């Protein structure tokens, strides 16, 4: 055990001594929350629309048809009452609901028809795009019916994220990004550095076991990753008022699983590359860019090309972001998120086993 603690102490010294890197690592979450606080604009396609039509008359059926025949929109169902809206939005089956009033045709004729557009505000950019698509559709339909000025008014109600604050949306993705950066990139570089400088040989010949070397390497970064996660959450809350509606414990457990996955990927990468530069490039291309692009962090998965969408399933951050968004913004718990947690757990186990094995193989 002395040997192991000596190793952890040495690793901690390396981190504390490199003041510049440490400062960058500690300040990055703050800088990024502030930078990303100003929304990233996105365009969307295939907005899934749920129509609520209690009257089912000529006019309402016609409007429903208009929804179904618009290329940017996709009709996912027609409900008879507004009660069906919330569960289906919550379950992620629809992006937006178009709620028509009772007796639609008569009210329309009198010019008092008012329709309601309800959207899931979790993804603020997506929600505002979706809402405007539906609003435009209703106005166009109205124009084609009466030929005069639009007499259908739209009202928008955002659920889950009532203020439509986009910072609520990006904080979970940012957590994923920062945790990936600290866990995967820093451990990959740190192990590659030992290989490059020749100290890895000395460590391997020493009584330290390979597993102790791996655990000793990742332990200090685990602490650093948690400090970063808490900093990002604190800044998001203090500056933008981003809430954590659900269980903080669940969020931290998911973060721990995600950090383990990232650490394992870092070890896996570093065991296969000869030097720090390759370690850095591989981690950036292989992990950080997918975390930004293929997880719904910046671009909604729905707006990616069809062939690329399945790829998002193998990016660990995709699942972590779903959990973090659910816990922070919707306040949902294990009952809904167990599947995503299970996927992360399986990924952690498989990747840790693979990385330990890869490291062992490379020693021979």
């Amino acid at each position: 055990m002395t040997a192991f603690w000596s190793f952890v102490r040495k690793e901690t010294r390396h981190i504390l001594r490199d003041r510049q890197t440490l400062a960058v690592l500690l300040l990055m979450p703050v800088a990024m929350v502030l930078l990303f606080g100003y929304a990233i604009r996105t365009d969307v396609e295939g907005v899934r629309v749920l129509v609520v039509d209690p009257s089912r008359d000529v006019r309402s059926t016609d409007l429903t048809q208009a929804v179904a025949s618009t290329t940017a929109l996709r009709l996912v169902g027609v409900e008879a009452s507004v009660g069906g809206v919330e569960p289906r939005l919550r379950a992620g089956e629809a992006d937006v609901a178009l709620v028509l009033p009772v007796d639609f045709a008569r009210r329309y004729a009198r010019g008092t028809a008012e329709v309601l557009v309800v959207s899931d505000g979790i993804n603020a950019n997506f929600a505002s795009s979706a809402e405007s698509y539906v609003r435009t559709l209703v106005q166009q339909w109205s124009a084609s019916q009466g030929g005069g000025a639009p007499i259908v008014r739209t009202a928008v109600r955002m659920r889950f994220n009532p203020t439509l604050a986009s910072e609520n949306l990006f904080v979970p993705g940012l957590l994923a990004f920062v945790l990936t950066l600290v866990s995967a990139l820093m451990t990959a570089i740190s192990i590659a550095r030992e290989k490059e400088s020749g100290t890895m040989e000395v460590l391997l010949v020493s009584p330290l076991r390979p597993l102790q070397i791996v655990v000793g390497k990742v332990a200090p970064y685990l602490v650093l990753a948690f400090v970063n996660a808490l900093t990002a959450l604190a800044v998001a809350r203090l500056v933008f008022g981003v809430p954590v509606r659900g269980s903080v414990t669940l969020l931290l457990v998911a973060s721990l699983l995600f950090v383990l996955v990232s650490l394992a990927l870092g070890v896996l990468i570093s065991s296969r590359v000869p030097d720090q530069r390759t370690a850095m490039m591989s981690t950036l291309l292989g992990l950080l860019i997918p975390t930004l692009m293929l997880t719904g962090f910046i671009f909604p998965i729905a707006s990616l090309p069809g062939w690329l969408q399945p790829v998002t399933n193998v990016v660990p951050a995709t699942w972590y972001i779903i959990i973090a968004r659910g816990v922070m913004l919707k306040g949902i718990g294990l009952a809904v998120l167990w599947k995503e947690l299970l996927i992360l757990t399986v990924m952690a186990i498989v990747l840790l086993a693979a990385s330990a094995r890869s490291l062992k193989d490379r020693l021979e």
Partner: protein
Amino acid sequence: MNPNPTPDAAVWARDLTRTFGTFTAVDAISFEVARGEVFGFLGANGAGKTTAIKMLTGLLAPTSGEATTAGYDVAKEPDAVKRRIGYMSQRFALYDDLTVAENVRFYGGVYGLSDDAIETRMTNALETLGFAHVRRERVGRLPLGWKQKLAFSVALLHEPEVVFLDEPTGGVDPVTRRQFWEMIYAAAARGTTVFVTTHYMDEAEYCDRVSIMVAGRIAALGTPSELKQQFDTDSMDGVFVKLVRPDRPTA
């Protein structure tokens, strides 16, 4: 051949072999190194030296054959072997961003020494080297020769039975090399077995005995004077060239 290792052999190998696929890196080598001996382990690049050292230090399992280091079977008890050996590689192996004292404490801790033991041994070692004043200096600021001598002292800190030096004097000036060999002799005089690889043939002359590997086999083994006689030449350089390039006449 006696199947049992000589009880006091520091390093003992019999038919030690390692293959990678169809390539035989080390081909049934057998030799014995006595305790306190300075043993030169020579060979051209790619002759199998590194693979042999990896097996003798318990890093790599042999494909066949047997070996013991410090009396422990390298295949069956690699952990016992690792605790009893020291190692210094051709590439410099201390941490540049840590101070001299921090490096010493780290390696001491890795080999399970108590804090008190580390302090006492560090003070002695630094005084012997004349490095007491750089104790709190970062290693990265020291000249290469100093680093090399320090690395050797660190490799000896836990008083290993056998110390493996893999081209320890690569890239240092002749004066430092001379001082380095004085340190090697001092360690051997205290009973530490020194197992050293080198590319400098003048250094081979300093060894008690020398083995020369060619294509995975030990092509020659003996004291420097025995080898010079056997190959009818007046320098180890001549011996080496005759073995490694048999088709070429010696200069």
